[in-house]
């Protein structure tokens, strides 16, 4: 499961890196992705074309995220809003509540079970659920595309530049506001694709984004906000802490060990393992 949470963490982290904003509603974009995927494969495409569904779900969440950014988050950068951090936190938390309750209102508080993407398979001697395998491979493919995009293409390099120095990029002739919008869209699209891939594993219901969000945030904070190698190290250490805690202390408190690790790391290194202190100008 560790790789799957990476999509969430990367989504949040990418947005934070570019815009210095935490998207508390990322779990709801995950949920929307799952709903879109469910609708598509049950009513329009059929199970055989689930991969098209994933793409469309990612596209939908991309558009929605870009729209949300254009309407709600962009004013932060044009000087209308004075309290940036507070504004972003309140607005995204309110957005999370809004989407969650809209989902209950439209779809009802039911759990939908999409059909399986693949039959159970065996890897060596291990019987594995086909859905997990597909989610794992799909995540790796998406991550590979994402990194190729970020490291090799011109636009990806522009994104890296925006996260390093906004005014500097502006002088180089890059439209920062437009890139913000696309970045927010990509971050939410990562979450949406995650939701679509995981739909048969975690099932589809209004609160299905909560668990991945919790893990995603833990990973981000432990690894340090805005740091991409941090995501992988933190994901690994979180997994180790949880299994060690479950083995040696008490297996029923698995959820707590991750948070305990988080508090411990923040106590020693207030900006996470790989994070840089915020620069105040």
């Amino acid at each position, binding site marked *: 499961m560790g790789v799957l949470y990476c999509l969430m963490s990367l989504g949040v982290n990418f947005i934070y890196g570019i815009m210095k904003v*935490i998207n508390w509603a990322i779990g709801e974009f995950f949920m929307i992705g799952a709903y879109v995927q469910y609708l598509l494969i049950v009513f329009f495409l059929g199970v055989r074309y689930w991969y098209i569904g994933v793409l469309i779900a990612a596209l939908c969440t991309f558009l929605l995220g870009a729209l949300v950014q254009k309407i709600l988050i962009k*004013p932060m950068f044009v000087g209308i809003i004075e309290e940036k951090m507070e504004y972003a936190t309140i607005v995204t938390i*309110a957005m999370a*509540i*809004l989407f969650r*309750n*809209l989902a209950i209102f439209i779809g009802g508080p039911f759990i939908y079970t999409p059909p399986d993407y693949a039959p159970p398979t065996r890897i060596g001697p291990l019987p594995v659920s086909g859905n997990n395998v597909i989610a794992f491979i799909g995540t790796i493919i998406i991550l590979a595309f994402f990194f190729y995009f970020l490291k090799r293409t011109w636009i990806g390099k522009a994104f890296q530049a925006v996260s390093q120095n906004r005014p500097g990029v502006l002088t180089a002739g890059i439209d920062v506001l437009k890139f913000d919008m696309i970045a927010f869209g990509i971050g939410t699209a990562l979450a949406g694709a995650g939701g679509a891939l995981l739909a048969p594993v975690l099932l589809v219901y209004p609160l299905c984004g909560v668990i991945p969000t919790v893990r995603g*945030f833990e990973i981000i904070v432990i690894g340090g906000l805005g740091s991409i190698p941090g995501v992988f190290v933190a994901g690994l250490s979180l997994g180790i802490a949880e299994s060690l805690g479950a083995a040696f202390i008490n297996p029923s408190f698995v959820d*707590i060990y991750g948070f305990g690790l988080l508090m411990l790391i*923040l106590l020693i290194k207030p900006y996470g393992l790989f994070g840089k202190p915020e620069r105040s100008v």
Partner: protein
Amino acid sequence: MLKYRFNSVGLLLLLLIAIVLPFYLADYWIHSLTVALYYVIMAVTWNLLGGYTGQFSLSHHTFAVIGSYTSALLIIRIGTPLWMGIVSSCIFNAFISLLLGILCLRMRGIYLALTTWAFAEIVKSYIRMDFQFTGGDRGLNTPLFFKTIDPLPYYYLFLAFAVITILIIAIIMRSRIGYYIRAIRNDELAAQAMGVNTVRWKVFSFMVASVLASMAGTLYGHFIGLVSPVLGEFSEMAFIIIFVVIGGMRSQAGPVVGTISVRFLAEVLRKWPEVRMVIFASVVILIMRFFNGGLIEFLRKVYQRIRHGKDGESVSVFQKME
């Protein structure tokens, strides 16, 4: 001077109305008013922390939960008398908030929000999981404060406590400490340079807010006779933020007005819980986006327009600083 007297007379009138009101209401509405008063206390104290001091804590509801659980556990497991349970839960909470405050001081901005959020989740899942000690999801039955389920005495208890809380916050904000706190929010570096002990006052406001919240939580536990992890859900925190933002952040009366009006609307829309949350969330987004002052600023503008017959100079809450 005249305006000041008018204000105090108006406030006394409001208090009088609040005292007389329950005689004309059904028990159900008294009960909801009491619950609303609990949220008033939470919103007002969070306003001190998140609004005035700028420490965006997301674990405010958790202190209420810790308070109610401490008191309930002491009474049930050890058999302490009720007043001792309440007092010791206060002291315990002061201790915990001191620890968390010291931990959080090293962080700023978004890390504080994330850490307090993590703390809230830890406490919630601990209470959920440790079934034998805390009762798990089923909660604990606590003894009632007045040994009766008639809401009237609880209403007065909460009213008194809410008034005391509002007074405490008002006194703090009018004293030297209030200026320190606002200075910290506006520019922490500048405040430090001017000789304000930012560390001490941040912990101070964190502790005051948490202890008052825990008192409210404890009383609430003894009012409904049940403590359960539901009060520790993140949606409680979201509710507190909704109250404060709709009422108007960084104003004395804002959270009170916001809480009462939103709770009233919530009671009216009780049948459609999703719809009401959708409405509140959209209102919060709209207020944050277009109209920073919230309800209280709106009322002030309307009042000015009636009073002066024209649009008064528009002073946003952010510039006004009071």
